[in-house]
C-alpha cells in the first residue's frame, strides 16, 4: 500500500474521531456553499479570477519586474531566491543585519515549504508562530494538517492539555475562549518583544509594488507594526497585475476558505513604517519548472484557500498529515509530484477523481484532471508497484480482444459462483475484506442478447 493509504488506514481506525474530523471539515464546506450561493455572480467571479491568473502566468516575468521596480521606489528591499535554501539564507542574512533574534511569524505556507523555522532555530534564533493554530502545532512540534486551519485535527482537550504544559493554563481547562485568551496574553508578550516580523503574502500587486496579507486574528499586523523589521515572503505566483483585481480575489478568498464574506483584516503593505525596514523575498523553488509543464501549470493559480481540502471526501477521512507534504489534499497532490515524483507517487492515487475539488476551486484549477494526468506520468516513469503494472498490461490485452474478454468474464463468473467462500474471500481479495463481491449471474448480457434478440 502506498504511504498515504497506510497513514489513512491508521487514521481511520478511530472511526468516531474520523467522523468528527470529517464533519468539522464538511461544516466548513457547507459554510462555503452558503456564501457562494449568496453571490449571484459567484461563477462569474471564479471565471474572472481564473482568467486573471491565466493572463498573469503568461506575463509573469514582466509583472514580477514591474512589482520589484515599484516596491524599490517605495524604499522596499526586494530579494530573489531560486530555492528553499537560498530563501532561508536570505531571510537569515536580513535578520542578522538587523541583529534580530526574536522573530514573530504569521501564517506562511511558503516558509513551511522552505523549512524556515528549523533553519532559523538552528542558528539560535527564536521563532514564534503567531497564528493560533500555527502556535498550537508549533508547541506540539508537528506540522500543520490544513493550510488554513492548522490544528483542525486536534480536539480542545488536547489543546487544553498542551496549553497547561506550555502556557501554564489550568489543568483540564478546555473552554476555547479561556484557551484563546491565554494564547492572546502569551503572544502579546512576543509581539512587544519582537525584533522582526515575517509574514507570507496572499497577493502581491505589480501596479503598486505592495503586498496584501489577510488574517482573521490580526496577528500579522501585531507583528509587522511593532517590530522594526518586517519581511514578507512570497512565491512568484502570488503576483496580480492591478489593485482592481483585488476586488475579485478578496471576494473569493475568504468565502472559499471559511464561508466568511472576507477575512477580518486585509492589510496592504507598501512602505516601511517610520524608522522601520521592509523587505520582500520572492521565491521560485520549483515554480518555474511547474510553469513549464502545460498540463500542470494551472496549479500555480492556487490562492491557498483550502476549499479543495474541505470538500475532499478522502482528505476529510484521512487528515492532512497522511499526505506528508507541506500542502496536503487535492492541490498538494498535484503540486508535490512535480517536486518529487517518486516520494509523492501515491498522492494522485489518493483520490476517486470525484471532481468536487475542481468545482469549489475559486480559480478553476482542473485539479481532478491533473490528478489523472499525474497518474499517467507516474506509471510511465515506473513508479507503480510491479504487480499493478503487470495486471494492467494483462487487463489491456484481455479487454481489447473480444474472445479473450468473453472467456475471462465467463471464468470469473464461474469461479466466484462455484469456489468455496473462504477461497473467494481470501486475504488477497482486498475488495472482499469489507464488501461482498457482486452476485454471479448465469449469463452475461451478451449471452442474454444472443438468446433473446436473435440476429436478423
Amino acid at each position, binding site marked *: 500500500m502506498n504511504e498515504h493509504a497506510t497513514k489513512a488506514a491508521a487514521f481511520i481506525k478511530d472511526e468516531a474521531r474520523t467522523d468528527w474530523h470529517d464533519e468539522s471539515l464538511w461544516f466548513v464546506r457547507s459554510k462555503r456553499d452558503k456564501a457562494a450561493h449568496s453571490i449571484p455572480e459567484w461563477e462569474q467571479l471564479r471565471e474572472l479570477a481564473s482568467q486573471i491568473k491565466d493572463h498573469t502566468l503568461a506575463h509573469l516575468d514582466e509583472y514580477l519586474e514591474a512589482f520589484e521596480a515599484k516596491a524599490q521606489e517605495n524604499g522596499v528591499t526586494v530579494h530573489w531566491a531560486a530555492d528553499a535554501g537560498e530563501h532561508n539564507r536570505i531571510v537569515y542574512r536580513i535578520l542578522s543585519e538587523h541583529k534580530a533574534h526574536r522573530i514573530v511569524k504569521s501564517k506562511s505556507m511558503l516558509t513551511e515549504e522552505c523549512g524556515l523555522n528549523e533553519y532559523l532555530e538552528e542558528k539560535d534564533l527564536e521563532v514564534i508562530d503567531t497564528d493560533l493554530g500555527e502556535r498550537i502545532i508549533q508547541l506540539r512540534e508537528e506540522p500543520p494538517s490544513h493550510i488554513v486551519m492548522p490544528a483542525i485535527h486536534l480536539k480542545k482537550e488536547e489543546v487544553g492539555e498542551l496549553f497547561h504544559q506550555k502556557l501554564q493554563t489550568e489543568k483540564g481547562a478546555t473552554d476555547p475562549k479561556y484557551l484563546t485568551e491565554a494564547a492572546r496574553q502569551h503572544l502579546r508578550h512576543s509581539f512587544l518583544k519582537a525584533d522582526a516580523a515575517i509574514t507570507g503574502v496572499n497577493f502581491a500587486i505589480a501596479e503598486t509594488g505592495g503586498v496584501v496579507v489577510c488574517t482573521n486574528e490580526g496577528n500579522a499586523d501585531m507583528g509587522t507594526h511593532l517590530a522594526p523589521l518586517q519581511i514578507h515572503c512570497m512565491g512568484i505566483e502570488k503576483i496580480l497585475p492591478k489593485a482592481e483585481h483585488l476586488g475579485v480575489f478578496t471576494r473569493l478568498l475568504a468565502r472559499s476558505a471559511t464561508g466568511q464574506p472576507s477575512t477580518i483584516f486585509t492589510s496592504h503593505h507598501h512602505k516601511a513604517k517610520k524608522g522601520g525596514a521592509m523587505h520582500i523575498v520572492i521565491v521560485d523553488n520549483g515554480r518555474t519548472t511547474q510553469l513549464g509543464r502545460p498540463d500542470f501549470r494551472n496549479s500555480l493559480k492556487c490562492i491557498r484557500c483550502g476549499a479543495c481540502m474541505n470538500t475532499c471526501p478522502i482528505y476529510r477521512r484521512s487528515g492532512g498529515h497522511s499526505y506528508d507534504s507541506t500542502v496536503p489534499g487535492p492541490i498538494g497532490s498535484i503540486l508535490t509530484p512535480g517536486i518529487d515524483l517518486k516520494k509523492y507517487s501515491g498522492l494522485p*492515487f489518493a483520490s*476517486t477523481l470525484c471532481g468536487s475539488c475542481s468545482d469549489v476551486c475559486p480559480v478553476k484549477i482542473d485539479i481532478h484532471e491533473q490528478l*489523472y494526468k499525474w497518474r499517467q506520468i507516474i506509471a510511465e516513469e515506473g513508479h507503480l508497484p510491479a504487480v499493478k503494472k503487470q495486471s494492467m498490461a494483462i487487463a489491456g490485452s484481455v479487454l481489447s480482444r473480444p474472445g479473450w474478454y468473453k472467456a475471462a468474464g465467463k471464468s470469473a463468473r464461474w469461479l466466484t459462483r462455484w469456489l468455496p467462500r473462504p477461497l473467494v474471500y481470501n486475504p488477497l481479495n482486498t475488495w472482499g475484506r469489507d464488501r461482498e463481491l*457482486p452476485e454471479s449471474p448465469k449469463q452475461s448480457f451478451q449471452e442474454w442478447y444472443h438468446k433473446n434478440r436473435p440476429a436478423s
Partner: protein
Amino acid sequence: MKIALFIPCYIDQFYPQVGVATLELLERLGCTVEYPEGQTCCGQPMANTGCEQDAIPTYKHYVNTFSGYDYVVTPSGSCAYHVRKHYDVIEQSPAVKQLRKRTLDLSEFLLDVLKVDELKARFPAKVGVHQSCHGLRGLRLGPGSERNIEAPSAIHTLLNMVDGVEIAGLDRADECCGFGGTFAINEPDISVKMGKDRIADHTRSGVEVITAGDMSCLMHLEGILRRQGSPVQVKHIAEILNSQA
C-alpha cells in the same frame, strides 16, 4: 438514427439485468438499437490506474466497434465521460471525433436527444438518489452542490416521471461513494468508509432502494449493504425507468 448500445464490461458480466433494462427501455421508446458484436470495454480500468498506454488498444477496439453510428448509448456516466474526455490521446480521426461527441450516457440520450418528458413506468418505493461523480461533475448531468448555477438534474427529472417513486432527502446531496475504480483497491479503508457513510445518509432517510446512473457506484454500495445484511437494495436508473411494476 443509427443507435448502438454499449454495455460496459462489468455490467455485461455482473449486472446483465441493467443492460436488459436499458435495451428494453430504449425499444419501448421507439428506438431501433443495435448491439455491435465484440464490444468489450471503454478502457477506463487501465487508464484510471495510470496505464493509458495499456488502454489504447482497447480504445481503438471501441472506435472500430462503434464507428458509423449516430449515437452510442451506454448506461454508464463514467464510460461516456471517459470516451469523451480521455480519448484525446489517440489520433483524432473523423470516427474518433464523432464518437467523442456522440457517446452518451443513457440519461443524456433520453432527455437531450429523445426529449422524453413522460414515461409509462411505475416503481413505488422510497428511492435514494446517488449522483455518480463522473456523470454529475464530468458530464454535467446536474448542477452539483458546489456550483452556484441553475440547471436541471437529469436523474431527478427522469425519476419524477416514474409513478410511485418518492425521492428521499439526503444530508449530502452528491458526496462521492468511494469506489473510484483503482481507489477501491488502493485505499480500501477510506473507500469502504466513504461507502458506509453514504449508506448511512440514505438509511437515515428511510430509503428502500438506492439508484444511480453508474453501476460501479452501486456495485460498491451493494457490496457493503450485503455485508451489513441490510435490506436496502440498489437499482440502476435504467431498471427503475423500465419498471412496469
